[in-house]
């Protein structure tokens, strides 16, 4: 474990017990998050982004989800073997989490104030009064207008953007070292998304916090992340610093993903490059390169699992003869 990294995930395997047998939703995923940096995890739905986050937080659906292998180190501590009591301290205390849909993260029958103050009561030794004041201050820091009044509101009184601010307040309350944000702005309008990302960036710079940002929006990645991890079908196919990845994508999947988004300067109504086929079900995968499988290639070279290795300083890619031009 290097000293620069706050979180290191090494060959993580997470499986789900299903009718079709044990399915590997996350298949030997490795990445690390340095102190004070934002790492983006990008990929299509079902690629294992969220399951990776859930594995780190030990929030996998029980009893079907299980971590079967690999290691997770957070500030040098082995999280996979930590006690449940320790994990409760870590969650909300040292690692904050922001989910996509704020309404499902908030309890609809309790006032905002009670929910935010609860975090302080759980993780610090504050009195009720102190926790309430700290919560009000937290809402003010997130630029929620009239925080004293909002403390008395119920979640349904607030707009989507305001609710997401409350969820961020919950996540940031105890000054965590790491915030895991799972599609934090996907349900919001672009204007509100810009406000929320601006807030998160501000907090990060001020507190030297690390951020793991899960998203499918490459625009958000380009504007907010320092490093990017590209996932496909439960595996990391490429990871690199953000400028390097956009300027010099090595894996065919990353290249295809970057090409397929319409840009503000592309010719209107021109044919957009697409990725043929769709993501297969997890049960259908073999050991070989999974993107080759999507492209319908059957060559022998792809039957063995491609190696994930560093090809340039900081730039790692899954080495597959068909998918990488090295």
């Amino acid at each position, binding site marked *: 474990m290097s000293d620069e990294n706050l979180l290191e995930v090494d060959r993580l395997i997470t499986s789900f017990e299903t009718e079709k047998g044990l399915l590997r939703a996350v298949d030997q995923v490795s990445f690390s998050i340095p102190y004070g940096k934002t790492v983006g995890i990008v990929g299509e739905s079902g690629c294992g982004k969220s399951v990776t986050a859930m594995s780190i937080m030990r929030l996998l659906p029980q009893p079907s989800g299980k971590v079967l292998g690999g290691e997770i180190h957070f500030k040098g501590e082995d999280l996979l073997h930590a006690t449940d009591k320790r994990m409760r301290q870590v969650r909300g205390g040292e690692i904050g989490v922001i989910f996509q849909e704020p309404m499902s993260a908030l309890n609809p029958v309790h006032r905002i104030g009670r929910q935010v103050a609860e975090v302080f009561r759980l993780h610090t030794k504050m009195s009720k009064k102190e926790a309430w004041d700290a919560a009000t201050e937290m809402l003010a820091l997130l630029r929620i207008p009239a925080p004293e009044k909002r403390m008395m509101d119920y979640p349904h009184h607030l707009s989507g953007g305001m609710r997401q601010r409350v969820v961020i307040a919950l996540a940031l309350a105890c000054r965590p070292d790491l915030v895991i944000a799972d599609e934090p702005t996907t349900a919001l309008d672009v204007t509100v998304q810009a406000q929320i990302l601006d807030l998160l960036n501000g907090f990060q710079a001020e507190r030297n916090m690390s951020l793991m940002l899960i998203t499918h929006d490459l625009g958000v990645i380009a504007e907010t992340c320092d490093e990017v991890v590209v996932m496909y079908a439960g595996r990391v196919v490429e990871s690199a610093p953000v400028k390097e990845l956009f300027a010099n994508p090595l894996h065919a999947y990353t290249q*295809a993903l970057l090409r397929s988004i319409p840009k503000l300067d592309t010719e209107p*109504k021109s044919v957009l490059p697409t990725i043929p086929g769709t993501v297969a079900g997890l049960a259908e995968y073999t050991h070989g390169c999974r993107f080759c499988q999507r492209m319908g290639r059957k060559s022998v070279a792809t039957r063995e699992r491609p190696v994930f290795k560093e090809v340039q300083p900081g730039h790692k890619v899954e080495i597959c003869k068909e998918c990488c031009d090295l």
Partner: protein
Amino acid sequence: MLEATDLRVHFPVRSGVFLRQTGAVKAVDGVSLQLGVGETLGLVGESGCGKSTLGKALVRLLKPTSGTIHFEGRDISHLGQGALRPLRRDFQMIFQDPSESLDARMNVRSLVEEPFRIHKLGNRAERRKWVDDLLDTVGLAAASAERHPFEFSGGQRQRIGIARALALKPKWLVCDEPVSALDVSVQSQILNLLVDLQKEFDLSYLFIAHDLSVVKHISDRVAVMYLGKIVELADSETIYRNPKHAYTKALLSAVPIADPTIKREKILLEGDVPSPIDPPEGSAFGHRINHARYQETIDMDLGLREIEPGHWVAADPCCLDANDWAAISKIS
């Protein structure tokens, strides 16, 4: 082909024991627009601005409160359900979430066949052939006809939705966020399909979306909506290169660009879209940004003016540059 004039859709707000009407949600508040044959009109705006309501009113899934909709010269705004039925063949709608708009218990064949059955078209053999042709048109394998919606991915389900909408050979379609629930790689497949279908059948689209790069890609002209009103309307190149209205500028600057080498100043808007129940009396956007000239706008006509050929913008001193406002004042 389609022309809406001063269209309004208000929903009553009722409260109290006797459910007396105490107010109205002015979801669409005085919108005029035209749609030509083979044209795509993009409609953008934040959630709650009335985009979807406008779309539904134009295909007459909702009854407009006032204003007129002319389709091929005929006023359809106040026709009853019976009179509308034969016309329904000409305009269709594609919804955002294909899994919610498809009946899970029907197989693909009966789903796509349903429009023919409702309009009593063809015999069994003919309908069978039409369905196979439609599935082929939208790029689904013939074998999928006997399967059920849950067996398909999101992109394929959207193709089924498109096949249903195309069944009766409509002249124009409202596409309400058709790609926002899809992954980027699938999104581009569906966008390509929509463009191809438009060329093949000379379709017109009203394309509603919140993703501005998608709207720019597919539209000939773009209308920007704010709180029930259109505030700017121009061809899509112009609106992206030379936006006049402050709201359009803010909306465009908020779109994240997938290029880490570009660093732009963002125009961050405070707050959310105000409630359409009790909208500000003057310029709605001027009120949001707390503009110094807001008070003046209360008694003003803030309607659209043609600032340059084909480029319409609301005549609103709060939302225009000094030069543009001077130009606009000369027109009015």
